[in-house]
């Protein structure tokens, strides 16, 4: 069977993409530019800017002279790669073999695909209309060889579909650049007056090789179909999703458990092979009355342990209402992480946060009591005591700074400071006595004041003057005064913690 290729050329790939995300740019002439040798050079122009006479390769200053209202945006280098990969994955609905053609095209191997759309015309028309509906300016061409399709797509003027075996006629009238040649070869051909492919297509091969090198012959052979060309298709990531349809609707908890077990086995088997583990999973039950029941779990550690995951789901199975029966079960892992496997020691039971058992224990507790019960703290670079710690995001997150011990901090801390009545000498001495919980405490000892200013760039508030005081029984408290003594204002005192 003869091969057929489709080449798609995005004439304004990145600018069209920007318009899709910022529709206000639609009627604006804008260009993308990047610095090259100390000046800004246009790398891509939008469709509107093109009508104003701007083109890629121009210097921004020149472009501004031609069309002063032009908008300049920074070019992002890696956008086109990602964008084309996404488009190639989108194109998989047309053919299983799609590949990207940097910087601005796609190549589809459509051998044996187009008849599904009726004809090749209908097939190409469908691709073009769908891509245009997405907002991309595209040109497409179909031919027996990749090279011919590429050339016709970018330089052809008449028709987009080159019939079987007609690629040499189609290439005749195209410029040499349509053969995907390097710029110095096209320049040399130009210099020698070989403006069209037909001028040198039938020349002696040895002469062409001597003058222009091997590459020209290669490209010519590839375009004419005398040499195979291998493409490297994109492979989309298969979602971590397992399905289990049922012959008869399932109504019992035992049935649901069996279904869950089977799905977990399948999913974990795949995760095991790929060295991955799941962090979030959703178990969905499609009922016969088209209602969807779902239960979710979350883990602290990427897990592929069927037993453990089943244990997390188990208490939630009772919340599923099967009603008239469930006909389809699906299990989806919405968050996947790589598992860093480490060598385990055999002879000692070492205890650490990274152990799987600890993570599984925390999962069990979370699944029973809710998600916000587990906290681990890391130091944060703030002076205010309530801001000096932050929550760790995961079990293996390491502190970025040291735990400081230069300032004395109480072992028990009140999240909400409690107001106290105080007798204290002015202006900044520790109190002589204070009343807390209805009891008068006489201060026998006190440490010097530690002033903590509030962070004005974060929030407004008065500074706090902290004192460590000890009462006559030897109990130590952390008190603070909010603000200064001043004309007319009497600062309030609070208790904020207890020392051991």
């Amino acid at each position, binding site marked *: 069977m003869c091969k057929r290729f489709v080449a798609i050329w995005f004439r304004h790939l990145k600018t069209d993409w920007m318009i899709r995300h910022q529709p206000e740019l639609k009627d604006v002439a804008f260009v993308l530019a990047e610095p090259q040798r100390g000046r800004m050079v246009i790398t891509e122009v939008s469709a509107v800017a093109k009508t104003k006479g701007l083109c890629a390769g121009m210097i921004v200053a020149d472009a501004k002279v031609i069309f002063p209202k032009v908008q300049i945006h920074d070019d992002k280098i890696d956008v086109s790669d990602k964008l084309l990969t996404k488009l190639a994955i989108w194109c998989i609905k047309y053919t299983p073999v799609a590949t990207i053609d940097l910087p601005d095209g796609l190549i589809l191997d459509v051998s044996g695909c187009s008849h599904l759309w009726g004809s090749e015309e209908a097939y190409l028309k469908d691709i073009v209309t769908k891509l245009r509906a997405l907002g991309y300016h595209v040109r497409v061409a179909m031919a027996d060889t990749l090279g011919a399709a590429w050339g016709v797509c970018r330089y052809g003027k008449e028709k987009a579909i080159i019939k079987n075996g007609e690629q040499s006629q189609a290439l005749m009238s195209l410029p040499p650049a349509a053969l995907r040649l390097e710029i110095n070869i096209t320049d040399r051909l130009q210099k020698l007056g070989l403006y069209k492919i037909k001028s040198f297509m039938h020349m002696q091969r040895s002469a062409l090789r001597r003058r222009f090198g091997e590459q020209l012959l290669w490209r010519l052979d590839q375009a004419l179909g005398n040499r195979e060309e291998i493409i490297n298709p994109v492979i989309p990531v298969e979602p971590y999703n397992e399905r289990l349809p049922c012959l008869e609707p399932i109504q019992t908890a035992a049935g649901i458990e069996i279904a869950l077990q089977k799905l977990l086995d399948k999913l974990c088997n795949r995760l095991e092979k790929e060295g991955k583990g799941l962090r979030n999973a959703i178990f969905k039950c499609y009922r016969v009355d088209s209602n969807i029941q779902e239960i979710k779990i979350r883990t602290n550690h990427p897990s592929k342990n069927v037993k453990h995951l089943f244990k997390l789901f188990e208490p939630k199975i009772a919340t599923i209402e099967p009603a008239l029966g469930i006909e389809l079960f699906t299990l989806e892992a919405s968050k996947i992480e790589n598992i860093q496997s480490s060598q385990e020691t055999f002879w000692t*039971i070492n205890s650490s946060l990274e152990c799987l058992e*600890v993570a599984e224990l925390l999962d069990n507790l979370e699944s029973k009591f809710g998600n916000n019960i587990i906290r681990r703290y890391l130091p944060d670079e703030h002076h205010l005591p309530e801001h000096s710690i932050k929550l760790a995001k995961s079990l293996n997150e390491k502190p970025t700074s040291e735990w400081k011990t230069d300032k004395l901090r109480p072992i028990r801390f009140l999240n909400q400071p409690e107001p106290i009545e105080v007798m204290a000498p002015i202006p900044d001495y520790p109190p002589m006595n204070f009343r807390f919980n209805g009891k008068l405490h006489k201060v026998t*000892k006190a440490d010097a004041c530690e002033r903590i200013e509030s962070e004005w760039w974060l929030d407004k508030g008065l500074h706090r003057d902290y004192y460590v005081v000890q009462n006559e029984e030897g109990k*130590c408290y952390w008190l603070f005064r909010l603000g200064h003594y001043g004309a007319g204002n009497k600062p309030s005192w609070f208790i904020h913690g*207890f020392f*051991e």
Partner: protein
Amino acid sequence: MKTDEQIYAFKKPTIAQLQRDILPLQGFKMLSTDNSINLGFPPIENAFPNAVFPMGCTHEFLSASIEEMASTNGFIAVLLSKLMQFDGAAIWVSSSRSLFPHSLKRFGVQPDKIIFVDLKNERDTLYAIEESLKCKRITAVVGEIKHITFKESRRLQLAAEQSRVTGLLVRDQPNILNTTACLSRWHITALPRELPDGMPGIGFPRWNIELLRVRNGKPGVWQVEYSSDRLKEIKQNIFSIPMEERKTG
């Protein structure tokens, strides 16, 4: 005819052997895999059988007020620093936690090695303590719990013996002081801090550590100061509990 003393001398090795056999049955197991820890304060260690602070069991701490709770937490932090010296992890289960993680560092505990489990009620707390005690990869579990029945404490003690995890139960103002299956019962209160020669400031933490009950050991009272990362006995006014107030479990 043998005298009583001769009979006793004859039976002494047998009795000693029996006593050694009874100890593990009462929760004092020493496994070869255990990292034995050293509190660095011999008087307290001598109160326990074999003069070793027992691990893989539960200890109970009483506190009568929020200030005593702070002192108890301080002493627990010292114990944790000793228990976790081999890079372990600990779990702190509570339903009304006000411990400030930052301050644990002063007692030699790396605060990020502690996982806090904050629950809504006592019932959940008890479940979480038991589940945590069953996890072999944890060094210690601190549980703040007000009420615990004998049966519940027995479950925790058995779980700890099984997994070799040390459980520290902090009982804040319990309504009734019932018997528990814990190996020991402690009461920590703060003592006035002192500095030499009237130096300004507050001074180092000082505690009155009462070991009220200990199975097969000798209860006692110690006045201790914690400074430069270790416990030191305060020399002046040493006293001990009168004999009639001593109890053994």
